[in-house]
């Protein structure tokens, strides 16, 4: 029987567009030291390490091996997980599985990226099929733009509606000292920013970031001894639907729809909008803030924009989304999904400082990969039954 698992400590770097003062493993170390401090543990207490990034963003492979000075992996069991954009959320799910196995009591989970070290689109393109997609592929932004365009066409929303999502996240980011972009923007700013790929403007998309995040997970045998109010992982789900770019359903994201439905069912969530207190959504561009919460079952299809305009997802609203400022304010890719996990757990543990949502009992984090994959995790204040 699997063990129940809780998050007992988290740590992040202060994410920046570029960190010339540290190399990859030195960056990793900053997050690891902060997570150990948060859990009041030392490296000796850690039984195993799970680490990941997207190798092709730095062009240095095998981070599980070369980063042990930073990760603390010297003479410990360590494994790498990497799944593209979902790397960070896969790390959270993988760390959960390893801890739940009962073989390791305390597992250190690390996600990181130095996006400043490569040409992001060039690197991303290496993940696509060389025969069918690469010769005609215009990069990640264009793939997202196609989804936004399809949704606009079906429901008649405009780029002004999407811009409202960017405005929300950038406002929230001002409360988060770890976020990269901490300056408020207006709808007009978004619409006046350069058009990257119709209908996506510069301020509709995530930046490129250097940063790392570490999360310490503990089995039910030790979790409450380490942390009096840990964030319990209630369940996880993920879906992949894609081989070639033409495979995914434009304007409604199937991987989110089926992953979320499975998670709600497993965890007994009947009305996610009413039961969940906060969501950290891996939302790499503004339109996803509308489309993907529909797929998640928060609100009916076609009603996303109205819900965003109502302010329900702002701080103080019915269901705040991205109190951290989310991905539009900060995107160290291999860390991004794990930052969502750390932020959601911080909300449960009441440690989110300026960005704390009051009285959080249930929180959700998600991950998204370039191939329209979705990971989703549910955390609770209560130990799951």
């Amino acid at each position, binding site marked *: 029987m699997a063990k129940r698992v809780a998050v007992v400590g988290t740590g992040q770097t202060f994410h920046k567009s570029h960190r*010339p003062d540290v190399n990859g493993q030195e960056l990793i170390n900053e997050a690891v030291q902060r997570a150990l401090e948060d859990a009041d543990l030392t*490296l000796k207490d850690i039984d195993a390490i799970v680490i990941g990034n997207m190798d092709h963003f730095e062009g240095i492979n095998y981070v599980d091996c070369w980063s042990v*000075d930073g990760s603390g992996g010297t003479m410990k069991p360590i494994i790498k997980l990497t799944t593209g954009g979902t790397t960070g959320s896969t790390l959270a799910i993988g760390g959960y599985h390893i801890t739940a196995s009962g073989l390791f009591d305390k597992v250190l989970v690390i996600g990181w990226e130095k996006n400043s070290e*490569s*040409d992001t689109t060039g690197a991303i393109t290496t993940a696509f099929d060389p025969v069918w997609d*690469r010769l005609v592929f215009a990069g990640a932004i264009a793939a997202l733009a196609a989804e936004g365009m399809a949704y606009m066409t079906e429901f008649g929303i405009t780029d002004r509606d999407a811009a409202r999502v960017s405005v929300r996240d950038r406002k929230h980011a001002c409360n988060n000292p770890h976020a990269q972009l901490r300056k408020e923007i207006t709808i007009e700013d978004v619409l006046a920013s350069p058009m990257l790929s119709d209908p996506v403007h510069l301020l509709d998309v995530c930046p490129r970031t250097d940063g790392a995040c570490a999360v310490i997970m503990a089995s039910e045998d030790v979790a409450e001894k380490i942390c009096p109010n840990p964030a319990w992982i209630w369940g996880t789900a993920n879906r992949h639907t894609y081989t070639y770019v033409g495979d995914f359903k434009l304007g409604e994201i199937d991987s989110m729809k089926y992953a979320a439905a499975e998670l709600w069912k497993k965890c007994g969530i009947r009305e996610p909008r009413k039961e969940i207190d906060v969501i950290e959504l891996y939302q790499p561009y503004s339109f996803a803030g509308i489309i993907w919460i529909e797929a998640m079952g928060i609100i009916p299809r076609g009603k996303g924009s109205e819900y965003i305009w109502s302010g329900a997802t702002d701080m103080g609203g019915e269901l705040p989304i991205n109190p951290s400022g989310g991905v539009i304010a900060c995107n160290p890719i291999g860390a991004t999904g794990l930052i969502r996990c750390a932020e959601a757990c911080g909300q449960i543990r009441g440690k989110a400082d300026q960005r704390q949502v009051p009285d959080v009992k249930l929180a959700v984090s998600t991950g998204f990969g370039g191939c329209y994959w979705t990971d989703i995790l549910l955390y609770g204040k209560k130990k799951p039954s």
Partner: protein
Amino acid sequence: MCADLSGIEPVIYKSGINVPYHWWAGDTASAFLTALRDRQTITAIKCGSCGMVFVPPRKTCPQCFTPNTQWLEVGPLGTVTAFTVARKQLAAIKDTVPVVFALVKLDGASTSMLHKLLLQNPSLAKAGMRVKPRFAQDRTGTILDIQGFEPA
């Protein structure tokens, strides 16, 4: 095993992707590399807990997991701990073969540094031999600011 390709023309795609990576060395490595470039000195960093002296320098001691802060100078003389002679010219080898790759433990260091031996005759290479660095004329802040090590 040989696949039967009769009647099949196997189409091959060549990579057209060239990703322009650039790597930040970080403050610790930069301190080492600029000392090498500007002063032709080889520096090391020492762990305050276990006393290990690292070349190349590292910000954190992998055993003690504590920050290293104490810089010192090592060498310039050192000892070859192991070597090999590369005799096949590969794309990754910039010099003309034979090239002698060696681990050199500089005097005062606990760890060895990977570099090259500059020898007229590679058969003169020996583990345990004493060597000294030959610095490059044009130094740009890489470990090739040491051209290689030659017999002391």
